[in-house]
């Protein structure tokens, strides 16, 4: 921010009288800039913007990949809203987002609070807690999860000790989604690091003053820590919710590519993938994709609106 303020603003008059050589030099500089940017620009236009526009068009067509797309107007959307499997996928995804996001953030914040205190081997602890996030996206972890939560595997055996016999989570439509939630929570490293950075920014003197006033640890957390890190909390809530809406890999692998059993792990993107790549209904899949974009945008908008009520910015307080 300060950089922008300090940057000298060249008066327009001076620019117009600048020698031709200087202008050419600047143009060459600009050209070099664009040249360096071009791989990214080409990548963006061809691999992101182009397909996105194409997909927006396909959302209004019936397209099976082989015959040319046929314009069907809003048919894909009306069929989609009436499709029981689509409704199920929305239900499963919402359930996942609502359960996984708060739990993950709670754990991330809890561990960040513990790790924020200086103690010996702090670096080691931080690395250890961050580690799962590095490998979390890999397919192999999905397989490991499948093995952990299967019938007569370690989780099942552990439960039996407490008299809870469900016969494994993976094959049980009532439990399998929570195995995915557990996988998500386990990868709390990224929000944890952000919380840690936020906690480091809280001025020590606030705590000292509070302590002098006789505030206990809970009070200090509630009245100082939480308001002070609320911008970071907002950032994490936003990022993790968007992330949760897009869950795919874990659901696909844990369910052995079927998003089941009994559609219990049929998250939105899993159904989208089935429609597009298994059933070759690219028009329907595109309509689903754009509906997700709009839904995520709405959720983001609501979060931004709500932040006025609970996010505390220092500038605003001044």
């Amino acid at each position: 921010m300060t950089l922008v303020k300090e940057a000298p603003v060249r008066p327009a008059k001076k620019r117009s009288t600048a020698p031709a050589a200087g202008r050419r030099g600047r143009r060459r500089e600009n050209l070099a800039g664009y040249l360096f940017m071009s791989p990214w620009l080409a990548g963006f236009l061809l691999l992101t913007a182009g397909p996105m526009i194409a997909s927006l068009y396909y959302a209004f067509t019936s397209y099976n990949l082989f015959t040319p797309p046929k314009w069907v107007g809003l048919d894909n959307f009306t069929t989609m809203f009436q499709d029981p499997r689509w409704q199920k996928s929305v239900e499963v995804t919402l359930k996942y987002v609502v359960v996984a996001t708060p739990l993950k953030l709670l754990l991330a914040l809890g561990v960040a609070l513990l790790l924020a205190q200086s103690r010996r081997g702090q670096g080691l602890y931080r690395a250890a807690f961050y580690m799962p996030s590095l490998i979390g996206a890999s397919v192999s972890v999905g397989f490991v999860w499948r093995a952990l939560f299967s019938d007569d595997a370690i989780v099942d055996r552990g439960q039996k000790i407490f008299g809870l016999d469900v016969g494994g989570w993976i094959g049980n439509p009532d439990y399998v989604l929570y195995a995915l939630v557990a996988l998500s929570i386990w990868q709390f490293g990224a929000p944890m690091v952000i919380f840690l950075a936020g906690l480091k920014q809280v001025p020590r003197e606030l705590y000292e003053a509070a302590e002098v006033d006789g505030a206990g640890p809970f009070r200090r957390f509630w009245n100082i820590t939480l308001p002070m890190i609320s911008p970071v909390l907002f950032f994490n809530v936003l990022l993790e919710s968007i992330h949760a809406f897009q869950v795919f890999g874990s659901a696909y692998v844990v369910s052995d590519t079927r998003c089941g059993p009994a559609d219990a792990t049929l998250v939105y993107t899993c159904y989208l993938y089935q429609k597009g790549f298994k059933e070759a209904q690219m028009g329907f899949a595109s309509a689903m994709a754009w509906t997700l974009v709009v839904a995520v945008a709405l959720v983001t908008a609501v979060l931004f609106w709500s932040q006025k009520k609970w996010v505390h910015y220092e500038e605003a307080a001044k």
Partner: protein
Amino acid sequence: MGTSRNVERRTILKVAGASAATLGLAATTGCGGDDSGSGDGTVTLRYAWWGGEPRTIAIKKTIALFEKKYPKIKIKPEFTDYEAFWEKFQTQASGGNPPDVFQNAVGFLRKYDKRGVLLDLKTQADAGNLSLENFRNGVLANGQVDGKQIGIPVGANTMALVIDLKAFKKAGVEAKMGWTWDEYFDALQTIQDKAKIAGDTGYCSIMYLYDLYLRQNGKAFFTDSDLGFTEDDLTQWWEDGYKRVRSGLIADPKKVEQVKPLSALSAGLAASEFTWDNFSIRYEGEGESDYGLAPIPTTDGKQTGQYLGSLMLSAFSGTKHPKEVAQFIDFMVHDPEVGKIMGYDRGILATTEQYEAFTPTDDNNKGVKAYEEEVAAAGVLGKITPHPSGADIIEAAFLRLGGEVTQGKTKPADAAKALFSEAKAAFAG
């Protein structure tokens, strides 16, 4: 179509999509150019199949044999498992870039014929590059659609009941030709009582078994362009199935789900499973018991409804080298050495040359051979019924909805209704 402006817009979108696809393709294959031919007259063909590791090892041996005999033709292998194979194939075919030769099955023939992907190999047979002679038991007909020969069978197999021999022995149950469904379910009860495991792994979600049941009752799963049964028929089938799951005659679907990719039979969750007869070879390697083949139960004590299914080789209609493709397929289905290497991995060898060249030595392959011969001798084999375009999607839906029923998550009548509605969309696609 619309105005010229619309066309222009569409062209731009297509160009955008196509460039993205080309870039992606180039990135994954590492080469964007056409490498199917070279200056010295050598031709390269891409050959793709699905299956496990033993099949891949065997096929690679047969490729080496072919390249030795035809030094001017090089074969580039591509292989994955079944699910991934068809997802990849669909994308490749829609981009006009499928393999020159590939493994195919009856459920996909009409789908890709309708989309113009499959080469009519009859023309190549007429040109003398491929022989359509010496196919056993009329199995060649499996690859014919509307007078075209779009698949050449490499093996033939039929549905069977694969049984855990030890469990059946322990329960004192014997499966016999012509036994009825009631006798079969009684046997499951005996197995449950005496061997203390479920009798069946979950028969009611298998589309090909339901097809046999319907055929025994004068119907079939598919007609030329539709389903050949009613919602009530299916509701009844799934209601009975669900009852048997609840009574423990059928393995707990929650457990079946968790042993995947192992079969519930080889994992010891049940004593029998309806599947294609060549699967008994796979289960022998997978499981700890001994596995054998038993006859399909019947409705009237006579007709099993069975027919010979088969895996085939098909070719891409747009291949640049149709002659070499035909020579390759001809070698793969007729050469005796290839038969010796492949054995019954893809079913009983389809041509007499290969069938006679391979003598099974192990109990399992011997069992498959004996079973096929017994079925053929019993005269129960019927003609294959149609598999319209979309059959593959309906098979997946049948498996999923059957699973929902047995898990107790969907009522049989609702699941049957859903299948009919999904089938309608699949046929239209």
